[in-house]
Structures are given as structure tokens and as C-alpha cells.
């Protein structure tokens, strides 16, 4: 794990990071990765294809809500809004 890798991860995660922080993060992540590397040798055996109960149980999307019904609630905590829309900096 090197600084460039950490900076790339920070870019993907949309978190700005200084070189100094990246160095400290690289050290910590390397330690955690070396701990979790033990799973590579775990004797898993045959786990089969049996469906677990621990799955998302999707339901039918019935009785749709009328458009705009929750607009106020959804926008209530928006830091920046205009005319029932979230407002973001100009992109193009």
C-alpha cells in the first residue's frame, strides 16, 4: 500500500487528502490488510447453493405515491435548494 494508491482511493471516495495523511493512512490500511489476509487460507469447503434467509426480500411496488407528495420532506434538510429542486454548482 503506497501513497499513490491511497490518493487514488481518496479520489474515488471523494475525500480530499494531504500527502501527510495519505502516508499515515497507507500504514494503517497495510496493517489491517495484513490481518484480513488470513482468510485467503481459510478451509471453506463446500458452501453449497442453498438460499440463505438473510437476503433482501423485495416486495411489489404497489400503490405508488402521487408525484410531489414527499417533495417538502425530501427537501427539508437540503443545504441548498431552489424551486423544489436540490441546487448544485454548475457542472457544464
Amino acid at each position, binding site marked *: 500500500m503506497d501513497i499513490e494508491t491511497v490518493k487514488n482511493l481518496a479520489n474515488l471516495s*471523494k475525500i480530499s487528502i494531504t500527502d501527510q495523511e495519505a502516508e499515515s493512512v497507507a500504514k*494503517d490500511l497495510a*496493517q489491517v490488510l495484513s490481518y484480513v489476509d*488470513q*482468510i485467503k487460507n481459510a478451509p*471453506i469447503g463446500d458452501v453449497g447453493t442453498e438460499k440463505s*434467509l438473510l437476503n433482501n*426480500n423485495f416486495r411489489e411496488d404497489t400503490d405508488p405515491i402521487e408525484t410531489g407528495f414527499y417533495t417538502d420532506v425530501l427537501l427539508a434538510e437540503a443545504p441548498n435548494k431552489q424551486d423544489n429542486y*436540490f441546487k448544485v454548482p454548475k457542472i457544464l
Partner: protein
Amino acid sequence: MTIPNTIKETHEKIKSGELSIRALVDSFLKNIEEKNSSINAYIEVYSDIDEQVKNAEKMFEEGRETIMTGIPISLKDNMLFLGHKASSGSKILENYTATYNATVVDLLKNAGAIFLGRTNMDEFAMGSSTETSFYGITKNPLNEEMVPGGSSGGAVASLSMGGTLLSLGSDTGGSIRQPAAFCGLVGMKPTYGTVSRYGLMAMASSLDQIGPITKNVADAETLFNFINKYDKNDATSIPENLRTENKKEVKKIGVPKSWVTGEGIEDSVKENFDKSIETLKSLGYEIVDIDLPLSPYALAVYYILMPAEASSNLSRYDSIRFGMSLPSNNLKNQYEKTRESGFGKEVKRRILLGTYILSHGYYEAYYGKALSLQKAIQKEYKNIFETVDVIATPTSPFLAFSIGAKTNDPIAMKLSDLFTVPANIAGIPAISIPSGDANNNLKHSIQFMGPMFGENLLFEVAKKFEENVQ
């Protein structure tokens, strides 16, 4: 004023007029007033308590009361209570006000429970000591030089310091049971899919579970039964007709000996556990040595699944829809600045780790392998519960440690969850209860794990043990 021992006793006394809800609530508020400035269990005491008390009194007057009416409870700061702040211990949500109720909050509110306030926690539940919150550390009420455990450290401390009758926490890898053990209380992680997580801020969705923190097993049972309901708003909630019945009586208790004889376990923890096993034997239980060869991998599986899921879940803190926003004329810059400043050190590390684990080239080696291993561990527990009714282990390999002692060692801190994480990986229920006095005014604890939907077995054995613990 003497606070009754259990929810049921409290309820009876309110009903008979022997105890007023106002007096009950005031006695807790007085303790909070006296102790919170040094313990820092509560981030906020709610301002609408009077209104809640009046509503509960009215429910009694009109005969609409439930077992929870007038019962004071504290909420972990990652649960939504409409119109009240909820921040998950983070700066990025410092000014966030909930726009809806979590299902557990709805259930308890409709029943007339009194929410006293929101409790401190490791930021986004990432930690085992409540030292990573934006709102400062929480101290252990049993010994203020020690951490209360985490991540539900504030929740547990709010009860331990006498600041509530009940508390709700969330447990992704031990975040209810480990702090309950550190502070000498009962903490329970129910079966995955029983208690709804709708309105709980997600960390690792395939592991997160809400559960009770109480003074005794009877209250854990009462509170669990109250919030244990199928909820269509939680896609992982298991419909009641799919929940399998379990045996009614515990006879055989499995003990994975290798866990207790391994390295890194404090001697006093071993000694106390041996004593607990003798107590269980004297109560007539048959103790069976069991082997769980894959369980030692559970913590490593956890440190792959959890950051992977957390890095995805925390992408919602985008400076646009809610939460903190540091405006910029460039969108990418706005994301990066806000998330850099809004998230604490540990949260950023876990997001970066999760992003690495999920990135092309590593996904199969880490995430794919961890998922297969999780499935194998689930199978391991399913099979072992064919031969034993419950499993007993210590809750944590060590007792509450000094504040600051493990903050700079990423592995040492994580080892405190060694014995609690397997239940989350397997999706099974587990309860931690005190098992005797330890040095420095701390408490020892024992954990019982049961098969899926086997909460009744845990309550049964834990109650008997509780009555007989020295």
C-alpha cells in the same frame, strides 16, 4: 425515590398510582443533570419531555396504556426521531434533523414510552470505545478512567449512570454487547431480520441490528418482544411466518474451548469464565466441548464486509441532499471538501479501506472470499445447534481498558470484538450479561449465542444464570 427493578414492576406501580411518571422521569433527569457533564453519555436531552410525559399520563387516564407507557428510554444517536436532531456522532450531521421516525421509535412512541435524549457513540458506529465521536469521548460510569466500550458507549453509560431505565443500541460487530459488558449491563443483539432497521443510519447493512440495553434479562426480554415485528419498510425484515420455532428448553450448552485458551485473553477473564461454567453445571446444564474451526476467521471477514458496505452506505453524505455542505463553485471540490471536513479520521480510513476492497482486481480475493466464508460460518453455526441448544463464551477477551490505551493500534482495538463478531456474521442472536465483579470496580460478563430466532432460549438460560451469579 427508589426506582423499581424492572419494566413490569414500574408499569404496575404507575398503574396502581404508587409511582408517578413525572417523578420517575424527574429522578432520571436529576441524575443526568448531576453526572452527564463528566460522563458525556447524552449528546442531547430532548426539550419535549414534558409533552411526552403529559401524553403518557393521558394514556393511563384514558385506559390506553401499554407496558411501555411512561417508561423512560434513551436513543443511540443513529436512530431517527422525527423533528429531533440525529447525528451518528458525526460533524457531517451536526445540524441534521430527522424527517421521519425509525420504526422502533414509532412503535415505542405510539406505546407512550418517554424518549429522554440521544446518546453518544463512535462516529457512524465505527469503534469499540466511544472515543471517535465528534462530540467528545464518553467515560465508563463504573470507573471514569476507563472507556465504556463502543460503539453504543453513550447508550450503555446513560443507563449505567442512572440516567434512564432502558436504552436502545445498534450492534454490527458487538456494539451493544461489548459496551454492556464493559459497564456491567445486559445487552442483546437479536437475530438478523427480526427488529426493523428502518430509520437506523446504516453502517454495514448485512450485519447491523438494533437491540435492547437493560439492567436485567427480564427487561431485555420485554423490550425485545415489544420491538420484534416484521416491517415492510426494511427489505431484510423476515416475515413472521418464515421465522422458525425453537425448542422450549435449554439442556446442552456448548463451549468452544479453543476460544478461551487462545492468546490475548486476560487471565481474570479466563478465570471468571471457568467459574461461570461451574455455575451453569451446578444449575443442571450439560456442558459440551465444541469445535468451531471457522469462527476464528469471523473477525477478518468482518473487517472486509463492514468497510466495503460502509464505504457504499456513506456515499449518501454528499453535501447536496442533507447534512453539512461546504459550498464551492466546483461540484467535485464541494464533495471532497465537505467529506474531508465532515468525517472523522476513523470513518475516512474505513471508507478508503472499503473502496480498496471493492476495487477491480481485489474484489474477488477479499469481498468474494469473505462472502463465501460468511456462508460457511453460517453453516457451521447451523450444524452446531443441531447438537447443543446455546453456546457460552466470554463477551470480550478483556475488561474495559483505559481511555486512550488502544487508539493508536488499529488491530488491538478490533480484538475486543473477537467473541461478539461471529454472531453478526452468522446472523444469530446473542446476549451479554454480567458474570461477577472484577478489579477496578469493573464487571465480568458472559455471552450466550443461540440459533436463529432462538431468543427465547437465550432469555431462559440468561435468567437462570443471572439469579445465581456470585
